[in-house]
């Protein structure tokens, strides 16, 4: 019981003003959007590639955020859904010859089904048990992808190489830049979808389940349906993120989707602030840049530096980027008054 209750006591703001506290205001959103659109025009290709990475990792973190922040369920197994999405896109592009943009909805749909089915056994589990079951899924996934039966399609241990798409209609853009804007467009679309989802009837049902399952079912929320639905939606978005990831790095192999990836996504959510959707991007930036910074501080001890940084986040800002944003907002409010 503790898990579900804890989330509630930790995030009372979510209940009071769900719309404001789970999203950004219009002004801030526009500023962030403008920054995301304009920055690539001034930076090198490699940085554009890293920004693309932040976007699709951000999507994966956002998906986990809907599951955990929205419906109060745990998952350490997001890497499995990510892998299924990435492989779906890669196989469709390389074996079937489908257009890269069209593979993404397919990846999303397949992952939605997969997540929905996985949600069935997960229904009976909560807290630590659910963490364990999803953890098991994440560990098993690379082994399953290496299986001989699927080797014809998955390329076995070798993986699959994916060709990078060119900018369409003869637009004067580098491949990286085109891919960045393509990813950005999808990210924005999914972000808006998620915000609206959480504001909708289904979103309120998710949050009711998170806050008190028994009360929710007493009010007529179909707990089983909405819990599995949350798993499905989360897996579907993760699948799209995985497909984008496969296109961006041009390569899929079983060992890119180990438990490490699942842990990274989980950390991204904790750092960004559970239940705060814009935090997903901050969390994604954390998991992409901080290991590099850690390696810069000490090559041999990068894991330790990473761990220490994580402990610092847990102890100093337990609500992640959301807490920082709230403090900043209050400061600005005070400045305006004086």
């Amino acid at each position: 019981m503790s898990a579900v209750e804890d989330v509630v006591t930790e995030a009372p703001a979510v209940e009071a003003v769900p719309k404001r506290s789970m999203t950004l205001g219009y002004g801030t959103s526009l500023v962030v959007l403008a920054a995301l659109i304009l920055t690539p025009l001034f930076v090198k290709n490699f940085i554009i590639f890293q920004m693309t990475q932040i976007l699709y990792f951000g999507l994966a973190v956002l998906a986990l955020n809907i599951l955990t922040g929205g419906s109060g369920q745990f998952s350490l197994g997001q890497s499995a859904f990510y892998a299924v999405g990435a492989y779906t896109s890669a196989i469709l592009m390389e074996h079937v010859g489908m257009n890269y943009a069209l593979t993404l909805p397919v990846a999303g749909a397949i992952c939605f089904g997969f997540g929905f089915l996985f949600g069935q056994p997960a229904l009976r589990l909560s807290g630590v048990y659910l963490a364990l079951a999803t953890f098991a899924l994440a560990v098993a996934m690379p082994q399953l992808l290496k299986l001989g039966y699927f080797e014809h399609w998955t390329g076995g241990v070798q993986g699959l190489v994916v060709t990078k798409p060119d900018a369409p209609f003869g637009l004067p853009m580098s491949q990286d830049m085109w891919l960045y804007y393509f990813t950005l467009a999808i990210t924005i679309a999914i972000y808006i979808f998620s915000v609206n989802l959480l504001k909708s009837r289904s979103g309120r049902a998710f949050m009711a389940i998170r806050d008190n399952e028994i009360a929710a079912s007493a009010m007529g929320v179909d707990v089983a349906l909405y819990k599995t639905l949350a798993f499905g939606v989360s897996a579907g978005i993760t699948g799209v993120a995985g497909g984008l990831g496969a296109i961006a790095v041009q390569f899929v192999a079983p060992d890119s989707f180990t438990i490490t990836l699942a842990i990274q996504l989980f950390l991204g959510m904790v750092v960004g602030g559970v239940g705060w959707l814009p935090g997903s991007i901050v969390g994604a930036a954390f998991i992409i840049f901080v290991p590099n910074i850690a390696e810069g501080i000490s090559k041999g001890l990068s894991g330790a530096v990473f761990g220490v940084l994580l402990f610092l986040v847990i102890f100093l800002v337990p609500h992640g980027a959301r807490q920082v944003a709230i403090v900043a907002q209050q400061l600005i409010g005070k400045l305006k008054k004086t």
Partner: protein
Amino acid sequence: MELFINQVLAGIATGAIYACMALAVVMIYQAIDHLNFAQGEMAMFSTFISWQLMQWGVPYWWAFLLTLALSFAGGIAIERLLFRPLAKAPILTNVAGFIALFAIINSVAGLTWDFTIKQYPTPFGSSPFLGSQLISTHQAGMIGVTVGLLILLYLFFQFTRIGLAMRAAASVPESARLVGINTSWMIALGWGMAAAIGSIAGMLIAPVVFLEPNMMGGVLIYGFAAAVLGGLTSPLGAVVGGFLVGVFENLAGTYIPGVGNELKLPIALALIITVLVVKPAGLFGRPIVKRV
């Protein structure tokens, strides 16, 4: 039939490894209500300490005892410094803390002792046990130690004051505090004991899987599977679960076509999920009753 018996014996031998690890997992789960994802790394680190002591010329059994004491102290120190402040934090934060601990220990061990595979001595020798080709004296010794450990733990929890206090603190903390038990120190004690049991597991496993910073990855997952199968609330269940998982793994590898070494891990995981779905309390665990 002979193949069957042989496979069961071999399964029990590997099962002893899982049983040891599962025992440590259950210990900590009893004390803090969380699964410690860094448990395997803590055990690995303890094993490295004992190896270092032996490199410095300390005889095996002294190194063994010293490591046990150091691990116990280390477990308590980790709890006091890092996890006590998180006691009231949500479960998510705790899991993130375990992951951070995992990364730190793994990386420090890798830097100190590098990632090459090292031989680790066994006190029991590795000749065939009672003329059997399948169980070596080391594996027999391992089974003996695991069972002995279980009996000791049983006596400790059943017949000592402090064992009783630990059980009280784990099941009803508020009432335990009212009768004068220092529940916070009981949790620290649980961490210490889990670390010590983990170090025994590590030192017994190391001769089989060899010593290196990543040696515990697979073992911990089987340990989880064993603990879940036996029931997370029961030390006896953990040990029985460990042996069952070992036997199951071997039999599945022998009799189900297509299950080679590469599928053994997914099988353990499928087992975890099946048990969680069919009987979440495990074979020997108490079902958890929720109050509205």
